């Protein structure tokens, strides 16, 4: 199948989401329509509270929406139960968080290996893929270190390796450069682009960071729950 006939990785139609705050009903998303093609590097920017994170959480199957339809790689995932959503996240979605969210008792290697373990990848293949991934993010020499012995940039590289090691179709990155200095942030963005391209992953990134948006294929702006 050629890339031109592949369905979009993300296809949201009329997505709405409300939060209850006491007696008040607060709309977070107001009829979102978006289609993100395979391999795209898309940023969503907007002020705090605009609904960026809510959109990413829905796209990453971390949260539910009230109305609309969500197709992930052509499959309707709107009404799946929690177990089915978990299994999709396990195999097809990677996450990069602002605060890295590495497991502190695991070494760098174990953190990167963990998604493959969840996906029941055989041990020999796991080892090979983790070695290759650590090489790509430049942390092969630090594979036995624990996260608390790494710098912020190194931790984010481990997080990127963890997100990409299972070759996901979609990577959700929520403010991945917010805690990094300019040099490190540029390195991390470059790494995400490079590895995203080589693994064929689609990136959906929530960010305020101009350093990030300037390198994206597409930048969409979110304002008051509406995507421009």
């Amino acid at each position: 199948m050629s890339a031109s006939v592949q369905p979009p990785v993300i296809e949201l139609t009329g997505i709405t989401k409300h939060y209850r705050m006491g007696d008040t009903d607060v709309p977070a998303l107001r009829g979102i329509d978006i289609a993100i093609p395979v391999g795209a590097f898309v940023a969503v920017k907007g002020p705090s509270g605009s609904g960026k994170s809510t959109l990413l959480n829905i796209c990453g199957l971390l949260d539910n929406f009230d109305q609309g339809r969500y197709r992930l790689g052509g499959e309707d995932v709107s009404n799946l139960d929690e177990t089915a959503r978990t299994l999709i996240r396990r195999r097809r979605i990677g996450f990069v968080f602002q605060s890295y969210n590495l497991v502190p008792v695991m070494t760098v290697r174990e953190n990167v290996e963990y998604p493959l373990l969840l996906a029941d990848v055989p041990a020999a293949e796991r080892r090979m893929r983790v070695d290759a991934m650590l090489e790509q993010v430049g942390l092969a020499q630090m594979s036995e270190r624990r996260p608390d012995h790494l710098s912020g940039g190194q931790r984010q590289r481990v997080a990127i390796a963890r997100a990409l090691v299972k070759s996901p179709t979609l990577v959700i990155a929520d403010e991945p450069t917010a805690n990094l200095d300019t040099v490190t942030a540029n390195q991390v963005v470059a790494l995400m682009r490079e590895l995203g391209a080589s693994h064929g992953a689609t990136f959906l990134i929530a960010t305020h960071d101009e350093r990030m948006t300037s390198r994206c294929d597409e930048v969409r702006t979110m304002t008051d729950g509406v995507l421009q």
Partner: protein
Amino acid sequence: MNNLRIAWQNVLRNRRRSLVTILITAVGTAAVLVAGGFALYTYEALRDAAARDFGHLTLAHKDYFSRDEDTPLQYGLADHAKLMAALEKENRIRRVLPRLAFSGLISNGDKSMIYVGQGVDVRGELAARGVFLKLVEGVLFGNNDEGSPRVLLGRDLAKSLSAKPGSSLTLLSTTTVDGLNAIDVEVAGIVSTGVPEVDKRLVYAALSTAQHLLVTDKVSTLAVYLDDTELTAPMLEEMQRTHPGNAVQPWWEQAFYYESVRGLYNRIFGLLGIIITALVFFSVGNTLAMAVVERTREIGTLRALGVLPAEIVAQFVREGALIGGAGTLIGMLLAGLTTLALLLLDVQMPPPPGRSEGYPLMVNASPTLYAIATLVIILLCAVAAWLVSRKASQKPIVEALGHV
């Protein structure tokens, strides 16, 4: 990647807190094992004492245990020699001892007291039971006792009669032929059973002396000693089948205090065990509840990566079981050392109510008790972990990821 290694590293995240919890589990385990071991030792000691005193089985006239006698030995065994010969052919039976229970008055000429006596085969009793009485004064049963009119007196009875070894006393009793008989006896020794109420009335005489006093050839019962106490139940069944004309009672029906003490100790130590395991349960639960709160964000991350709630719970259960395992391991060691120390130090317990002598504080190291206690405590720790992590594993992922 080894799940248990990760679980252990999680346990070690907050070393001080985990160490305190492991120590509480260890002390709890040791307390359960020592208390349980003491109860087991007591049951075993009481069982052995009862079997030693009464014989593993007692064979008697069919009405002996169920009806009161109108005259002495009305329900005695006349054919005891034949019965003994038949029983001694059974190779599981170590020894059969005839016993004659009698009572009456004992007098020093100035003062008379009621006594409760037992006529025994002196050498046989010593061979079957060992030294079963504490000798206070005189000799227990010297050579040539058989047939000689010599008796042993309980300490308090001797004191009441101002009797000493060598003193002459008179035994008076109702005979089996509707009359009274009296014989002069010499005090061979003064003994103590450890129970003042018994020592106040106790007289031991040779079987022939007792039979001479009661003018009879009968005995009251035959005490049957087996090679092993465990054989009591099957031999009871066997003897009831082979001696349908007689009554047969096992030691536990005669030793009423055995079941009473066992029932009391089961309640006391059972309650103690419940309290201790509850403390361990809440301690482990509290430690893991704190760990769950601290790791809420990590739980959210793992859920985002595709870990199922049940797998999150399983990880905490492994951590709980490891805390329980480490605690019980140290607890078993502590209990083992305590058992060894008690064995070497010979610590004495004070006399129980109604007794005048203490007994050694010993603890049985029962593999079954160790296995059950360990499994129960590890299981409880795992259940505590399950309870505290279940809710957190179901928390919405977005909420968990936002936890500070």
